[in-house]
């Protein structure tokens, strides 16, 4: 999958949750959204990209993406 697009999508989601005052809820918000709406191949691509540093992801998106279960792990 086009990783640039996935990074942009993840950042867009994070922008929405950014103003949630409770940081933990904000991270869960981003993560939950990705899990509920992204096809597994998109999540896998993002998760793999994060392993390589995740450049371009804003901090909240990066934090959430890091929590995506790795391949083989169950949600």
């Amino acid at each position, binding site marked *: *999958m086009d990783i640039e697009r996935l990074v942009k*999508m993840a950042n867009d989601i994070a922008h*929405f949750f950014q103003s949630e005052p409770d940081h933990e809820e904000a991270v869960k918000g981003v993560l939950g*959204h990705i899990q509920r709406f*992204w*096809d597994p*191949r998109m999540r896998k691509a993002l998760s793999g990209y994060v392993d390589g540093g995740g450049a371009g992801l804003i901090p909240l998106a990066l934090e959430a993406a890091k929590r995506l279960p790795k391949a083989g792990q169950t949600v």
Partner: protein
Amino acid sequence: MISTIRWKDLGTPARVSERLVDLEVDGIPVSVPEGTSVLRAAAEAGISIPKLCATDSLEAFGSCRLCLVEIEGRKGYPASCTTPVAAGMVVHTQTRKLADIRRGVMELYISDHPLDCLTCSANGNCELQDMAGAVGLREVRYGYEGENHLDLTKDTSNPYFTFDPSKCIVCSRCVRACEETQGTFALTIDGRGFESKVSAGMNEAFMDSECVSCGACVQACPTATLMEKSVIDMGQAEHSVVTTCAYCGVGCSFRAEMKGNELVRMVPNKDGHANHGHSCVKGRFAFGYATHKDRITTPMIRDKISDPWKQVSWDEAINHAASEFKRIQAKHGRGAVGGITSSRCTNEETYLVQKLVRAAFGNNNVDTCARVCHSPTGYGLKATLGESAGTQDFDSVEKTDVVLVIGANPTDGHPVFASRMKRRLREGAKLIVVDPRTIDLVRTPHVEASHHLKLRPGTNVAVINALAHTIVTEGLANEAFVAERCEAKEFAKWKAFISEARNSPEELQAETGVPAAEVRAAARLYATGGNAAIYYGLGVTEHSQGSTMVIGIANLAMLTGNIGREGVGVNPLRGQNNVQGACDMGSFPHELPGYRHVSDTATRTLFEQSWGVKLESEPGLRIPNMLDAAIDGSFRGIYIEGEDIAQSDPDTQHVTSALEAMECVVVQDLFLNETAKYAHVFLPGSSFLEKNGTFTNAERRISPVRKVMPSLSGKEDWEITVMLAEALGYAMPYKHPSEIMDEIASLTPTFTGVSYAKLEELGSIQWPCNEQHPVGTPVMHIDEFVRGKGRFLITEYVPTEERTSRKYPLILTTGRILSQYNVGAQTRRTFNSMWHDEDRLEIHPSDAELRGIKEGDWAGVRSRSGETVLRALITERVQPGVVYTTFHFPESGANVITTDNSDWATNCPEYKVTAVQVEPVTQPSEWQKRFRSFSEQQQELLEEARETTQA
């Protein structure tokens, strides 16, 4: 439902009153609501009083004097249409004296009327003829030699109806219909006495006047003066069938008037719950596409898109498609194929497509074109209120005091509802418009918006925040409602956020371009003006913050308690006829029918038991993800029913590259649309006249679609999906769409009470329809929200990344026009193109002058995605810095320019904001040249296939 051609006309509109009045008509006792006319009371008692100028869709006018009656204790002969009933009244409708007067009146009319009844198009369906019979007219003593109107010339300028003034009896029904029903005020009666005549505009031809060709006047005319050309050509129909319009989300009910298998005309159904007997130019007149010569009626296949098409049997086409899908899945995995359904399909068809994808393909890669229009509505309303649908019925607007229209253009997009809305506004309701353009509604006859917040495209959320900020900080919120009905913790968080100074109208004014005072005034009106209702359209959803804006709208309604009763609410105006239904039927990749997430084990188990297969618990790909995955190589086959992504989806060049990258594209449609030009299998679909099913309109109203003629291809669309599923090895043993609805009802809690039998009985049903709501639900969230407590969510304004720059200094935004419908595949194949035969670029005079562009010049429009050329239309409707176009013609390439930006939550494309540069040019863009030659080539490949078969 087959019905007879004539309606019972009760003469004057129904009155609603708690108080009933008892009277006696010709010795028969009648009891009617206070305010009812004597004419209507008599009709309800089964007594027909002769009448000409009165009809029950219009207020009585009392001009023809045919409906006179005698009332005991009253002098003279009052007109029964304008006389209200009174308690104890004793009315006589048939006396010798009355008969004489009526005959005299008729004699006068007939003396100035051509006596060509036998060859007249209204023969057999003419009220003048009927009345001549009813009053027993036997002679006309005045002769026809005197001064008369018999030589007046016909106006045939409108493509759908003629105006023959020689037959006019000046009853003014047409004038009143145009005013009261349509709200356009295009007709007048000029002159007085003998000189008086009906004319369009300032004595213009209909086509040159303000007339929008809704046909209300034609329907109201008691004679052949205003008459459908189709009736003139074909004669009067002999039977009719009630069905539902296949165009916009208003979902008007119609009687298709038929002569055998031929459609003579469409007449809006008086008993239609969405439209109450009104329609627009599309639904009433633009049905010619259904029998257009471009229709493809034989299945076709080919290996490569550069190959000629080969016409084949249904079996061969279906087996070919199925074996291709199986081959791709075997090689590239189960998730390498998917399907797209359309909001133009029936509920039953959409349900089957998603079922095929989930059960036969074994994945969740199914999506619908609602992705590109109202997916944010689904997300935003579910998150806040708990249900992905509008909260009201259309009738609710009659109790509204303040109408807030955001990012919608109802007079063009939802014309019949716009007429209802305009009627309410003429009665005194206030109007607030939030739109970057001066849409027609801002100022129409007898309607003027109190506030027009002419914002910069892309700043919706800033405006809704500023409105909410004003209401909260000025103490105008309905605290009691919020305390009782909403989650306290979430509200407190939201309140703290919205009260921050950065959300004030003053702070945001530089960003939105809307003066703070105007925002404050609008907020006060919305919060304190009585029942306030929000109506919104794609100008809300098609943004990078589309879902945030929908949430903001729901917040605003909850904040002021404007939800949960008549006259208020949150009303998404759905673009296409079945957007609501497509979403309800589970055509999104993450949810099963009834908006239940695929990861929910209980729901999945329910469907697994019914469908007899194991279902995937992970969400599938959405349309834009499918396209990306196609380019990436992990997605290679697609089944597309009734959708034209190559024209309607953003960033056309990206879409067509993705289609080119796929190995098997199966398109099921009426025409070789833009997407079909990239297809390997073409399955000929059926028009809405050729199949049974249901559509669900913007009010959640499920209405029947009925087959009025055989399918040209021999198959209804649902049958094609069934064949494909079976060829894939998954049985779908349905015999009729009613069985599909029964299955939907058995699996979806909001649909449990829905069946074809109930639809037959009630005419239409607004879901939820179940044990708690056996006849449906006009207004939702009455005592509590569907999710329990309403939930406020923080709506931070995040400016779109699509900003203007030196290179792209203007913002392009897009929209629709009344006469054309979306990609135009249907309306472009009708006379509707006489009103709009090309997409134009609206540009403000100052921007045009700066660039040396004059009216009608070719203007090149360039964005970071691509470039196209359109003719310029210079107008102050758009503000400086903003340009606008419609997207009805594929060669315009409006979507070549739109970008891949999308809503954060749903990936709904940001059609409404694209940074562009505009320059004068002398020739089409490179894309347009390529488009033209590719289209010509594809057309030739189609012609070759047709010729081979004929030879």
